[in-house]
């Protein structure tokens, strides 16, 4: 028979009680940076539940896959086929994969923006030192950088692949950087619009649907109008129609600014290009102002 003392565990749990925190407290810049990082990670499902990772990671794979295949063909069979450039120009890649980008924006903007309003987590942010406007701008920046990363990642694959396939580095770099500027513009337009829609609708499902409708319907309408107008020989109408979808707007700007290969039948020329630039600027500014105004009203916590 064993005595109770033999079976008694030897370890002891010490209740060290509550320890106050006397360490450093960082300023608004560091807090904003931390919020930005967390937001960016959340856009790709990192730090969230396993289920939240599925969609963004699938989309990232979907947008990279064509680039990887194109590069593989270029590197392996470039010489045999006598290729002297990218199979798909950098400036057109975004237009071709736009469905993936639209789905990503529609899924992740509400996840980032509506979430705080829906779960009322916004209250906890507002009850902390961070200023309201900083919170809004940082959230938008997280979304913008996430979209930019998604759009730029395949371009980077194409670029690196192009260099490996001995395409002229100077020309490739120029084309690549032009497309990167286009990607940044597109990211700003899409994230601004999507963030505003998410902040206004609050309900996630509704926001997802609204963003999809706005992005897909606007592009379809623009494509239809441009097609018909080109057929009917109304080039001016076809050009102006390009203003009404973020994708055609950026495509037009790329053509106008960098003389990139166009994806639409009616790229802007001359003064119409200025109109494109102004429209992009106005849409981005308006969505930021709209967002700030939306959150200024959120006193009813």
């Amino acid at each position, binding site marked *: 028979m064993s005595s109770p003392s033999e079976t008694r565990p030897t370890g002891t749990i010490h209740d060290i*009680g*509550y*320890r*106050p*925190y*006397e*360490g*450093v*407290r*960082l*300023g608004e810049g*560091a*807090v904003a940076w*931390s*919020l930005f990082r*967390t937001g960016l990670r959340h856009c790709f499902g990192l*730090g*969230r*539940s396993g*289920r*939240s990772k599925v969609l963004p990671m699938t989309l990232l794979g979907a947008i990279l896959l064509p680039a990887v295949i194109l590069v593989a063909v270029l590197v392996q069979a470039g010489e045999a086929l006598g290729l002297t450039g990218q199979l798909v120009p950098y400036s057109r890649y975004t237009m071709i994969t736009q469905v993936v980008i639209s789905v990503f924006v529609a899924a992740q903007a509400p996840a980032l923006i509506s*979430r*705080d309003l829906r*779960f*009322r*987590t916004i*209250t*906890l*942010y*507002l*009850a*902390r*030192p*961070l*200023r309201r406007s900083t919170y809004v701008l940082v959230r938008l920046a997280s979304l913008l950088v996430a979209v930019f990363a998604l759009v730029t990642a395949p371009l980077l694959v194409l670029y690196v692949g192009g260099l490996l396939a001995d395409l002229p580095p100077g020309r490739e770099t120029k084309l690549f950087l032009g497309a990167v500027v286009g990607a940044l513009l597109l990211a700003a337009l899409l994230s601004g619009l999507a963030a505003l829609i998410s902040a206004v609708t609050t309900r996630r499902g509704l926001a997802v649907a609204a963003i999809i409708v706005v992005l897909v319907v606007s592009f379809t309408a623009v494509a239809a109008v441009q097609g018909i107008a080109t057929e009917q020989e109304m080039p001016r109408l076809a050009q102006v129609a390009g203003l009404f979808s973020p994708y055609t707007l950026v495509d037009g700007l790329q053509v106008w600014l960098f003389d990139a290969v166009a994806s639409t039948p009616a790229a802007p020329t001359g003064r119409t290009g200025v109109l494109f630039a102004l429209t992009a600027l106005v849409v981005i500014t308006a969505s930021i102002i709209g967002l700030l105004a939306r959150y200024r009203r959120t*006193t009813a*916590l």
Partner: protein
Amino acid sequence: MVAVIEAQQVSKRYPRVTALDRLDLTVGDGVTGLVGANGAGKSTLIKILLGLLPLTGGRAEVFGHDVTTEGATIRALVGYMPEHECLPADVSANDFVVHMGEMSGLPHAAARERAADVLRQVGLAEERYRPMGGYSTGMKQRAKLAQALVHHPRLVLLDEPTNGLDPRSRDDMLALVRKIGTEFGIAVLVTSHLLGELERVSDHVVVLDAGRLLRSSATTDYLHTTGTLVVEVLGGRREAELIAAALGGAGVVARIAGHLVEVEARDELIYDTVRDLTVELHLGLVRMQERHHRIEDVFRDEEAGRVQPV
């Protein structure tokens, strides 16, 4: 020493309602209970103290900082647990509390350490690694409390922390509130529409009614003894009458109340007198207890008609 909260003539008027009406209030260290019916202005007061709602009149200071001009400074010193749900469903309590610590300016490593510490203090064990969407109300309340404590504030504002909890979890939560005010050394302002709860944990109780201050005093003031000793002996009314008569013979004022005897307690000697007399009469003494007021007795007299006693 600067008061934790100092409010003078604080008013908050909306176009149709007056949420707070010329409220004067001083809150010190320890646990302060803020009692009032729903809509009495408790949450409004908390939002004003956080610098999130503009005042329509008067002035308020938290640790000497003006709520209208130094909101950010105050929010760095204060932790806030809202009444409503505020937790994202797809994040674990651990990740969320770390994030909220960082939002209060803690470096990442410190935030991780603090989050582990406060989650342990509020009693969230292994479940802190699960997404919060699957939490019970009790666990959610604990997670909400943890995020309010993670940056070691000097004051926490707890808005109805016991809301929706079952009796057992409510006791745990109240014990925790008491612990924050005493062991953690953090001043606490805790609201409830239930008087009995705050009676148990608060050093000081403030009663709001329709935006007005009804009463503000130390809890001990409410609970002072009434000078009456309740004596119960084995048996029924006959035994009670026996002891009452004996006490009367010893020159003590004693009344029969049912099967109990209410004795006027003039001094400490009364306990000995009661004990000796019951022994002499061969009676069994069941209890001998000082009668306390309860907070609700006090408020019953003070037109706090809409405050619900427990």
